[in-house]
């Protein structure tokens, strides 16, 4: 009797839907509110939205965000939207806890948390995300 019961359980598990997926070929959909890797947005005209107001940095509970501001010069109006911009902007992904407070604090709609993971890396350098200096 127990023999049949055991086999029955086995058959049920064998034919039921698997809990795992074949990862690289298949991916699970993210939740709509998933908070992943940060992006700094530009506006419709391609100018940087971020004005280095520091609200994301002060809102950050992990103190992952640091920045340094600079004044926009004449001839740079097409690059930066406001008088002041972030000359340096860094997020330390080793510190970041993906709480999304930076996105919430941003008055300029500049920083967003996107729908991707932060890739893993072997050294610390790969986790300090910065603006590329052109």
């Amino acid at each position, binding site marked *: 009797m127990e023999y049949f019961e055991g086999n029955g359980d086995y058959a049920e598990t064998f034919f039921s839907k698997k809990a795992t997926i074949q990862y690289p070929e298949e991916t699970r959909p993210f939740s709509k509110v998933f908070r992943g890797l940060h992006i700094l947005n530009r506006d419709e005209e391609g100018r940087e939205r971020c*004005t*280095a*107001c*520091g*609200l994301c*940095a*002060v809102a950050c509970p992990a103190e992952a965000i*640091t*920045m*340094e*501001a*600079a*004044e926009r*010069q004449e001839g*740079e109006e097409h690059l930066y939207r*406001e*008088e*002041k911009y972030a*000359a*340096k902007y*860094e997020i*330390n992904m080793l510190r970041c806890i993906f709480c999304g407070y930076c996105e919430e604090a941003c*008055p*300029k709609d500049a920083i967003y948390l996107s729908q991707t993971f932060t890739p893993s890396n072997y050294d*610390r*350098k790969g986790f*300090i995300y*910065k603006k590329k*200096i052109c």
Partner: protein
Amino acid sequence: MAEEIKKEAPPKMKVTIDNISVEVDPGTTILQAARLIGGDVTPPAMCFYTPLKGSGGKCRTCLVEVSKGSEKDPRPMPKLVASCRTGVMDGMEVKSVTSQRVLDARAGVVEFLLLNHPLDCPICDQAGECHLQDLSYEHGKEGTRYEFKRRTFKKHNLGQYIQLHMTRCILCYRCVFTADQVTNKRSHGVLDRGDHAEIATYIEKSLDNDFIGNVIDVCPVGALTDKTFRFKNRVWFTKPEDAHRDCDKCCGKVTLWKRGDEVLRVTARKDQWGEIMNTEDGKTGWICNECRFEKKDVKDWVIEGPTKVARHSVIGANHYEVLDKPEETVAKVMGGRQPKLLLDIHNISDVNDPSVDLSKIKGPATGAVFNKTKLIQEKENNN
């Protein structure tokens, strides 16, 4: 007899503000009486500034309701009065936050002040210590009904020290009084009338009187800001420390706003009402331009200790109590051997680069400041 002798003593006046009684000297204004009580009772003030004679009565944010004129004449005052310019009377009863009329009036005043004030707090250096920010947050309404273009002005250059943002000005006249009473010659003022009124120098003229830097401290908004501090850091990331130096022109008692060991900004010391504090000898602690703009080195100053910052202030975000740096313990524990591997954040981070000293730059940093140093570094590496 005993009663008569009592009467000869300087009579104190009893004034009741929001059901809290306080006894003050005759000639005190309602605002100052309310400040003695403190807390929510105190009306906000944008234009009144205790050390400046004649200031007040312009911004109308300190309106209060006088529900009983005095003991002798108990009739209430028909309109709300500006508390900074109205003297107390014996037995006066005042309503500040307990009166709905007052709250409505203040909300209206805030809305008017914000009609033309740009919402550029993210860019403004005053953000975090701005009185208009506090005022609108505490007394204003959430939205504005204004739909038109805000006024703009032709830009005026006030010299290498002071940055004027006329769009942010609320015309409190504090800086004009400061220039009149603290410096020996006033060379700026309010030009034009009504909506066109603006703070300016008539001919493009830089402000370079010796004490003119104080207009930055008295400005309740970000209209007059320190050019040597411009955009260098946000106020709440800097560490305020009380310091002094021997200065033959002024009292030399200041607050340093530091990042690490860099002195990014020097201001006069301010009290809880945002007004410049008196020094020990009872004089107002105005500071001279040399102390404010030229002494951006820790070695110039004797540091007394961290400035007390109110708990609710955003400047208290990086709150600290002592200035002692924690000592390195590794060598101690390892019998004198220094650590072999140190993970210095500056190896990988560009922010707060030790080779860039922002306090040594005269004006605001530009992109070139950060890029140039990069170039220099690369050159050094190549060599």
